[in-house]
């Protein structure tokens, strides 16, 4: 059972130094923070994060159903991954 908080915690820990580069810490990050808009990562970085999340939680996630506008938003992404893990 993976919770959205687990996913969120993992993602923010992975992006620790990238967040620091734009003057953020994990504590500052709200669910609506968009990682690409906030220049934390680029689209390629998003793919890396997806790969890391999948490897860490031993998942293979189908992102087709996630609104692309929400793919790089911390909250929606975490909830989507948790829900997909649950359903799988």
């Amino acid at each position, binding site marked *: 059972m993976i919770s959205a908080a687990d996913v969120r915690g993992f993602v923010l820990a992975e992006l620790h130094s990238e967040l620091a580069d734009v003057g953020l810490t994990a504590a500052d990050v709200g669910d609506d923070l968009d990682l690409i808009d906030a220049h934390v990562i680029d689209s*390629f970085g998003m*793919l*890396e994060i997806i*790969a890391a999340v999948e490897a860490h939680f031993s998942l293979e996630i189908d992102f*087709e159903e*996630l609104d*692309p*506008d929400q*793919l790089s938003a911390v909250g929606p992404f975490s909830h989507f991954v948790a829900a997909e893990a649950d359903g799988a």
Partner: protein
Amino acid sequence: MDEALSTDGEDEPPVVDERAARDELEESLARAESERAALQARLDDELEASRAAFETYAAAEGRVAELEGILTGTEAVRARAEADRDALEARLPVELTAAQQRHDEVLAAAEQRLQAITDLLDRQTQESAAERAALQLERERDAQRIVELEQRLKEELAQAASHAEDLVEEARNAREELRPRAARKLAEIQAELDTERQERTALEARLEALVGEHAELEQRRALEETSAQARIAELEPSLEEARTGWERSWGELDALRDRLEGTETRLLERERELTLERDQALQRVAELERSLSEAEDGNEVVERALQSVSADRDRIETARRVLEARMTARDEAERAFLVERELERRIARSHRLQLTRVERRMTEIASGLGVALRRLDAPGTPQAESSDDPRAPSSGPRAPARARRGSETQSRQHVADQAATAERRAPAAQPLAPTRPPAPDPPPQAAPAARIGARPPAPKRRPAPIPPAPETRTMVTGFERAAAGFPARPALEVAGETITFADLHDRAARIAATLQRETPTADPPLTAVFAHRTSVAFAGVLGTLMRGHGYVPLNRTLPVARTRTMFERAECQAIVADAESAKQLPELLDDAPYPVVVLLPDVDDVAELRAALPAHVVLGARDLAPAASWTPIEVDASAIAYLLFTSGSTGTPKGVMVSHANVLHYVDAMVARYDIDEHDRVSQTHDLTFDVSVFDLFVAWERGACVCCPGQRTMLNPGRYVRDAKLTVWFSVPSVAMFMRRLGSLKPDSYPDLRWSLFAGEPLPVEVVRAWGQAAPASIVENLYGPTEVTVVCALYSWDAQTSPDDCEGGLLPIGRPLEGLGMLIVDEQLHEVRPGEQGELLVSGPQVTLGYWRDGEKTAAAFVVPPGQEVVHYRTGDLVRRPRRADGPIAFIGRRDQQVKIRGVRIELGEIESALRDAAGVDSVAALGWPTTLVGADAIEAFVGSEDVDAVAIRTALAKRLPVHMVPRRVRTLAQLPLNANGKIDRAALVKLLESE
């Protein structure tokens, strides 16, 4: 109780007495009792006290007895002590005597010992005196020895002094001996010197002779000069005469020009009056039409006005003919003048150059007049305009207004524009012009005989009604035609907004009109478009082109410093920006050396930006000119349509100059092949800074299709967008398809509406095509290839699941065959064509070969060449391809030519290693680099594979079996994904950084 008291109340006195008596009795009884008790207590106390006294007495008696016992004991002891004392007293004298005796003995012994010590002391004192005496003796002896030594030293010094004197004497003698010899030598040298002096005198004499000769020559020269000057003086008057003649002629010329200009001004004024009159007449016509009863009168008025217009036209025609006659006469006079003044050829030549310029200007004025006159040819009939104006059916009420403005400014604008065209064309096109053929033939031995024709394999649905092409076509003509043909159909969907052709045309016309107003004489004729996935981006590109400028796309998602380099190099004097990009303007325009006109069509309040950009002209949405004030401009097909900066190998971006003619050839080939019509919905995935976007916009609009632009974030996983937007044509870089596949968006039958699936920009892996083909089964997948320098796409390959796998090399699709009209040549290092089946660099020729690099003749000359045995300019792509074995086979892409490295002097193509990597890893995303780099190449190869599910060691082993040892990567690294650059290509610089950081 209360009741008893009340009863007792009646006989109170007797009771009281009785009670008092009783109480008294009781009281005395109690007293007696207490006295008895007190007496008893005293008795007890006394009894007790007497008992205690008795006890004390008994105790005292006991004590007395005890003390008496003790006293008896003590008496006995005293008796014994007294006995002892007596005994002791008896012994005392004896003891005293003994003690005295012992004291005397000890005293004697001590005295004896004292004596002994004193003796010893005396002895020692004597011994030390003897030692001191000995020491004194020794010191005296040493002193004597010192005196002796001093004496000896003195003697030796004296000896040395005398020896030195001897030596000095000897030296003096020797010098005396040498002096005569030195004198002899001196004499010899003196003699030599004399000889030399004599020689010098001789030389001086010769010099003098030469000086004389020189003076003579000088004199002769002066004489000649004088005669020359005299000759010049003689010639001077004729020269002056000639000059005066020339100036007179020049003055005549000026007068003629002034008159011409005056005539033109009068012509323009007249024209304006006529237009006003015509408009009045038109108004009248309308009035008359509304009121039938006044029809006849109105017709007469119109008739009169038309007659007057016609008369005026005749007068103008006559004036023009007179002018032409005068110009002819002037030309003849000038020819005669030139023949007559043959002597002044050098002066005349420079004057003639000026004259030519004036002449050209005159011709331009004349042709401007021609245009103005042609416009006057159809006065009063608004319908006549529509032959040139594609918007006429939808913009009838606007036409007279435009005609009025047009007649006022058109001729002047046209002249200015032609001059500008001539100026800008000269430097850009010159390097290529002489070698470019009138109609480019395919090279005689071009590898593939088969060419991509107009045959579209996709199902053709319905014929599209296309209005006839106007006389001069530019990149934007297709859009204007579509805007006229389909004004109400959607032209663009962007940021949640659907914009019709009429609306988009209107927005573009406002931008074009504002640019015309604000930059009437922009040089170079370029405008930057700084907008990203907003309506401003599209209206900006169209508006710039409608202004007659080339557009320079800039991108806010690139580093500002890079954008700034592009903007400054292009020297744009105007920039169209959207609100989001405008945030970067202060940094972009920081120290621009001239004021820039900034158009912000989607910003209402520009106060803040105005304050931030005090040196520039900032115009918001409300400051734009009305669309109706836009005046169409004729632009030469060889002018720059867009200037697109690509990354240069040296780090500075290179600006590729693409002409309208280049783009039109490309757009026509695409429209024909893909059978685009107004019902198509075309994806717009490429940023405007990537030239593939020209397809997304201009191929779509050429036939009235809708351009569908997803947001930046949607591009991460656009699968749902493809369905929601009902796209029929998809075009992206292969990386987007790889992303979609990775995110689970390429499931079979996902996109049934797609007719075409097009990919370009980087090598297309077979694996991706297969997955895409299943996801969009009704579509045809094609790989499009082309560098920016030959206008977006110059070759393509259509995928066929049955036959294509045999054509693929290294897991990549071939780049296929050239577009109709283009030539391709595959050559070796010396630019000679390679044999079929061999590898070589791909060269491309034909009408899509662009004008070269912006203000970089050197790079242009290096990349745009005429190969030996060829007659036309070919662009060197730098891409390594394989020439097909069969004449009709497709060209296979191998890799980049500039990915060539040398390892220990051996030349290596990284593309070849990458091809082997792809096969061994079963993964398409691979890269090989020469690393670490050295002055002459690299030490070794490093390889990257974009997958973590592969066995790096096994891959290396497989390569070792296939490649020569120096080509086998030292290490094969696996990464989840290889880094990509802004255009979605593998970012080699990032990989190098990765290696550097290790």
